[in-house]
């Protein structure tokens, strides 16, 4: 044996202090009133009209963005898989590079493009068309989400499809499968683990974001993330904020459980 069990102690302490107790305190505040009494009202507050609307919008925008990312990423991953060695390296490089830019700056870039006085509107008016209100719409938020999160969908899918043994595909053709059959019956099922981790890596941040909606929604469109953030930073109502966070966590856990049904390996291949 190289080491003793005791080597793990700092880690265990860190888990308790950095993960277990903080999460427990969300649960504590979520069920507590300002005077320290027990209550469900912070949880049931989700049924307030504006909260429910924000949650609904969050869910639908997150789902739409995830689907768009998936539709864009899968073909791109396949192109990557089939491209030649040197070109492949270049393409991966191209995909990774924007990820290294701070995502606030990337989101800001879209603000610059979509702004009423922005680049796209300048182009539109230059050809004589009326200005468009693109900013501060759900569409702008979806665009920002897709732009920010697309690489997180491409890379895990690419990781799994690149490991598919070419002999399997050749065997499928050899056994008489058509190209579409090869995709639906061989490649797609084998890429499920990548797709699942891609979806987790896009859906959860999209569902919980408050930054993208703040920057591209102009503060007019509230997602559930915005509501929670405001409770903590502006209203200082940690009790309500915690309660709503608990509700949001339920949706996170539900989505993970659903995804795990598709893929037993779960979050293990997130990296």
């Amino acid at each position: 044996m190289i080491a003793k069990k005791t080597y793990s102690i700092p880690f265990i302490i860190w888990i308790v202090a950095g993960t277990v107790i903080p999460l427990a305190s969300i649960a504590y505040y979520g069920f507590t009133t300002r005077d320290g009494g027990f209550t469900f009202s912070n949880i049931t507050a989700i049924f307030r009209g504006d909260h429910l609307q924000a949650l609904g919008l969050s869910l639908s925008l997150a789902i739409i963005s995830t689907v768009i990312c998936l539709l864009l990423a899968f073909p791109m991953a396949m192109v990557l898989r089939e491209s030649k060695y040197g070109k492949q390296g270049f393409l991966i490089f191209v995909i990774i590079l924007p990820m290294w830019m701070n995502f606030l700056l990337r989101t800001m870039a879209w603000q610059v493009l979509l702004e009423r006085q922005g680049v796209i509107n300048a182009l539109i008016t230059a050809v004589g068309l009326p200005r468009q209100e693109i900013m501060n719409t759900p569409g702008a938020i979806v665009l920002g989400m897709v732009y920010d999160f697309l690489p997180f969908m491409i890379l895990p899918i690419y990781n799994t499809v690149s490991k598919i043994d070419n002999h399997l595909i050749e065997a499928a053709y050899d056994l008489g499968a058509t190209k579409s059959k090869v995709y639906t019956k061989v490649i797609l099922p084998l890429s499920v683990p990548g797709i699942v981790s891609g979806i987790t890596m896009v859906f959860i941040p999209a569902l919980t974001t408050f930054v993208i909606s703040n920057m591209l929604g102009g503060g007019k469109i509230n997602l559930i993330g915005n509501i929670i953030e405001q409770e903590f930073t502006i209203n200082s109502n940690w009790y309500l904020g915690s309660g709503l966070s608990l509700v949001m966590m339920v949706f996170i856990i539900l989505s993970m459980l659903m995804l795990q049904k598709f893929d037993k390996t779960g979050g293990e291949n997130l990296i």
Partner: protein
Amino acid sequence: MLFLYLPILTLIVLSFNETKSMSVWGGFSLKWYEELFHSRLMMGAIVNTFSIAILAALIATVVGTMAVLGMAAMKPRTQNILLGFNNIPMLNADIVTGIALMLFFLMLGAPRGYMTILFSHATFCIPYVILSVRPRVNKNTDRLFEAALDLGASERYAFRKIVLPELKPGIMSGFLLSFTMSVDDFIITYFTRGAGINTISTLIYSEVKIGIRPSLFALSSIIFVVALVVLLAVNIRNDRIEKAEMIRPAL
């Protein structure tokens, strides 16, 4: 491609724009870069960002590597429970991790600032270290360790000369991953920082909220160029290693 790079290119072009307009070209200028470098706030944020990233990555690397070694001595069941907990900060939404830590600090009455950010960053970096080092601690490492003992080495010597070099690639990638995660983080920092302290991310956010200034475009251009250079350097190194690996069997 266009979709990925058009926004970035726009920022780069605008960073050299004489006027503040986002759509009208007013001539070439470097004044926004000058403004950026003269901003005390920005320089402070840059120092904070990198010092926190290095420290958090160091702490996470030490704690995580020790954890992996300790876990190797445990029963598979215990290991799986610990790994389950390890996955929580990785799978959890950043906003939840952020407010959880914020509440924890509030409960403790800890003043929020540099230290709370550092603690939080180490918390979300440890899982990445564990996941990158763990695959390297296996039966093979055990056997190499035994071989060293068999040849007369003390346990310390065997650990230093044989086990550590074996773990090194995992430790390195864990460290680098932690470093980039920390530099890149906004949400968790946002909730765990105090009033007077900024990292690059939080500074960008507060400035964008007030109104986009072209100096941020200058910052974007610089970050993009730095990322490009770093990635190219890493890529070239990778290519060299791969090339060496391709040549070697031929010898």
